[in-house]
């Protein structure tokens, strides 16, 4: 008999009514900022549009915390438990302005919507960005039609924050295993977990070619960690939430830490729809939301942080003012970058059961490249990843190859696209371009009648060249790993990387950037960005750790502008 299980919509300290800071969104950036603020005693209200997939997340006793996330492929991947529904929350896309109002309506790099944000779905690989990644404006120099810029922080500035975050959330990795990684002031908090068989095969192939495979740094427990159990390699990792809290995602780490301070109130199913400002537009006076009941409400605080991830952050700025909140530079919504992914598929004659394990356990940084070296162009980290589970596999046979009937069934039994397959993915640097941007679609609306975000985006030669250069090398690795077939998959017409950056670029020059080095909007005295919206460039590494690190830095600077390090709570 079906029973109703209702998770609370409001969690944390429900008695709070006055807030120092209001944070919109509850993902990696937002949670990291909230963690530092609440530890310093600031009263914080967090508003999250998505559902709360946890029971008792604000209980200090781990045995009371449970979740709706499960090894359920149908719910997570095909019924969109936390992914936006294209029927009522689409985005639109066009390659450039001359393409007309839009050429496509539907899914454009949409991110999961839920308490804890997109990382719930991630398999949470957590390499740091490398030292060069923070100064590509200088290192690459001017490139036609691209807009590379230095970050307002160097690797050295952020290094102690990286160390703090790795310890606070829990990261596994092998010290010294990636020769291209930056210097570390701390060791990995946990050793690597169980290596996937196919990951080892590909690593062996890569080694034979002189590359440097490493156990992928990952925010997954390989030991019991802070009350959470060690991962048990359940095989439903990337695109699923973790049923046992072994993934060190925001909800079960920094967000929960913030909830346990008693200084945070989190309201889920509560969607920000407008930033209210004073008449001169220099101060935010409130955030208007649509609550779980569909009614409008306004919340206020002294300071406000946008943590909805780049596309929704920019959208809210434009929903709030035609010119865009904080847009004297004209840069709100611009310099939108995705990682440009190149995927190579390898199919072995034998079964390699990539679907068993943590999705990715190995990778290489050899293709990240050296700025300005044409023999070593700037691509990105390559992860050795597992394919879909069974529903996805069967749909691939039908949708990609046209198999139906006996051959569909034979394929499911033999499983070339699951039990025999691995996909290696390069997350290449995506050259920032002023013309790649988010604005509002002139006609397409969401369920509340609000304009949806429109993405105008086309690739730069920079990343296309990297793909052409490294794609064949990726195939070589798979061949050396003993695959029967290996090939580069066609590029996605519209990015589905789920790695999204920019739109509120941080920088020191208020004419070319939206936010300053503290994360504060240049134009307003009490509005901040956090996380990946601030990134001036995409780097070539998975972003979760750096989003959390930047979010931590923003929170620490809000608490202690002159010495942010001193604001870090105990890890």
């Amino acid at each position, binding site marked *: 008999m079906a029973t109703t299980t209702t998770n609370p919509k409001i969690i944390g300290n429900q008695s709070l009514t006055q807030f120092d800071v209001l944070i919109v969104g509850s993902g990696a950036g937002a949670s990291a900022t909230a963690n530092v603020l609440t530890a310093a005693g600031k009263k914080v209200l967090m508003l999250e549009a998505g559902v709360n997939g946890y029971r008792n997340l604000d209980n200090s006793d781990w045995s009371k915390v449970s979740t709706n996330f499960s090894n359920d492929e149908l719910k997570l991947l095909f019924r969109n438990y936390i992914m936006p529904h294209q029927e009522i929350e689409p985005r639109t896309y066009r390659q450039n302005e001359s393409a007309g109002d839009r050429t496509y309506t539907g899914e454009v790099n949409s991110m999961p919507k839920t308490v804890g944000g997109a990382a719930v779905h991630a398999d949470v690989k957590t390499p740091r960005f490398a030292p060069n990644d923070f100064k590509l404006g200088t290192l690459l120099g001017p490139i036609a039609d691209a807009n590379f810029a230095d970050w307002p922080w160097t690797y050295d500035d952020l290094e102690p924050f990286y160390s703090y975050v790795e310890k606070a959330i829990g990261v596994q990795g092998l010290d010294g295993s990636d020769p291209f990684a930056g210097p570390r002031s701390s060791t990995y908090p946990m050793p690597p977990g169980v290596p996937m068989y196919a990951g080892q095969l590909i690593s062996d192939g890569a080694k034979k070619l002189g590359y440097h495979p490493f156990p992928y740094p990952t925010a997954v427990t390989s030991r019991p960690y802070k009350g959470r159990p*060690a991962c048990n390699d359940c095989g439903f990792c990337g695109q699923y939430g973790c*049923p046992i809290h072994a993934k060190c995602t925001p909800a079960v780490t920094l967000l929960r830490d913030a909830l346990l301070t008693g200084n945070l109130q989190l309201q889920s199913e509560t969607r920000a729809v407008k930033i209210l400002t004073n008449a001169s537009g220099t101060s935010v006076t409130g955030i208007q939301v649509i609550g779980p009941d569909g009614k409008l409400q306004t919340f206020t605080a002294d300071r406000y942080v946008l943590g909805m991830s780049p596309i929704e952050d920019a959208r809210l700025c434009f929903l709030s003012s035609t010119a865009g909140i904080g847009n004297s530079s004209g840069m709100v919504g611009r310099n939108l970058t995705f990682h440009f992914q190149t995927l190579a598929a390898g199919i072995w004659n034998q079964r390699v059961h990539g679907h068993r394990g943590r999705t990715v356990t190995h990778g290489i940084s050899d293709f990240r490249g050296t700025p300005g070296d044409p023999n070593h162009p700037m691509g990105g980290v390559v992860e050795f990843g597992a394919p879909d589970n069974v529903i996805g596999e069967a749909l691939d046979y039908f949708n990609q190859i046209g198999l139906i009937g006996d051959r569909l069934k034979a394929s*499911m039994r033999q499983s070339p696209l699951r039990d025999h397959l691995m996909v290696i993915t390069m997350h290449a640097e995506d050259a920032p371009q002023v013309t790649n941007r988010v604005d509002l679609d002139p006609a397409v609306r969401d369920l509340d009648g609000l304009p949806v975000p429109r993405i105008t985006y086309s690739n730069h030669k920079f990343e296309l060249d990297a793909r052409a250069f490294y794609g064949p090398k990726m195939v070589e690795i798979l061949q050396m790993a003993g695959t029967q077939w290996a090939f580069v998959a066609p590029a996605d017409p519209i990015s589905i990387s789920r790695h999204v950056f920019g739109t509120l670029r941080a920088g020191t020059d208020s004419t070319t950037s939206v936010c300053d080095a503290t994360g504060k909007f240049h134009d307003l005295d009490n509005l901040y960005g956090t996380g990946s919206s601030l990134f001036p460039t995409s780097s070539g590494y998975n972003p979760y750790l750096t989003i959390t690190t930047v979010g931590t830095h923003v929170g620490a600077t809000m608490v202690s502008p002159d010495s942010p390090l001193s604001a870090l709570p105990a890890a």
Partner: protein
Amino acid sequence: MPTKLPVIGVSRREFLELTALGAGVAVLPAGCASSGPTFLTGTERSTLAVLADHVLPQDKQPGGAALGVVDYIERLMTAFEFTPPRIFADGPFSNRNPYPAASGGVASTQYPADAFVNFLPLDRVQEAAWRLKLYGSVGVPGGGPNDAVLGPQKGMRDILRDGVAALHAAVPQGIGKLSSNDLELQLLHLADFRALMVQLTIEGCFCAPEYGGNKGGEGWQIAHFQGDTQPLGNTIYDPVLSDYRENPNFPVSTIDPGPDPEPLDDQTIALFTSIASSQAP
């Protein structure tokens, strides 16, 4: 490095038996309506059963119909006649796998209650989306948000109902007598219906059994797939060893034991050889 000891304690055979037992939903003949609210008529059920077998045929193992695809579809089409709507099964665990023991790196004999049989309440947005998916613009007050710009959306219920009716009109003698090729030719005229039917059939064959399909976990057995593995998982961290133990029957770090249950056959090899050679270098 993990320790490879035969200790998790659930063998491949036991696992598949457990899977089948845990998923003990009674199998109804495809033409009979399951108990509870119904959307499909008897004729529609019979037609969808033929189509489910067209997508995944019956042979020495069940096809789409025997795996429960029609019940799966019925449950989804009537999802909103239940409170909460039967869209999202709860978690974190089914009752198909035991908890790990507190020590020793082995399985315990304790199983969780099956939380997948419970369904989650929908929030405002999920409810609006799923009503639109199932009932279409005509079936929800005010229609879809972009009907004026993009045209009205047709709901799954109407796509199925109209598709079956169109097939009956085109093949008055009944589709059961058509060869697979002839049926495919008919379906190619009904692109939306065909796409939806294949999608729902595949979901119904390989979903968690609590959604009404994949009866007895037999869809997963066809695919040599374990299904959900929590709370045991595939490895167990042993605090005494300070290391992992792997299930030797479902290892993570090494090749599977024993022979491949169904190696790639000549047709699959030919297919992938041609796919690989057609990809741009």
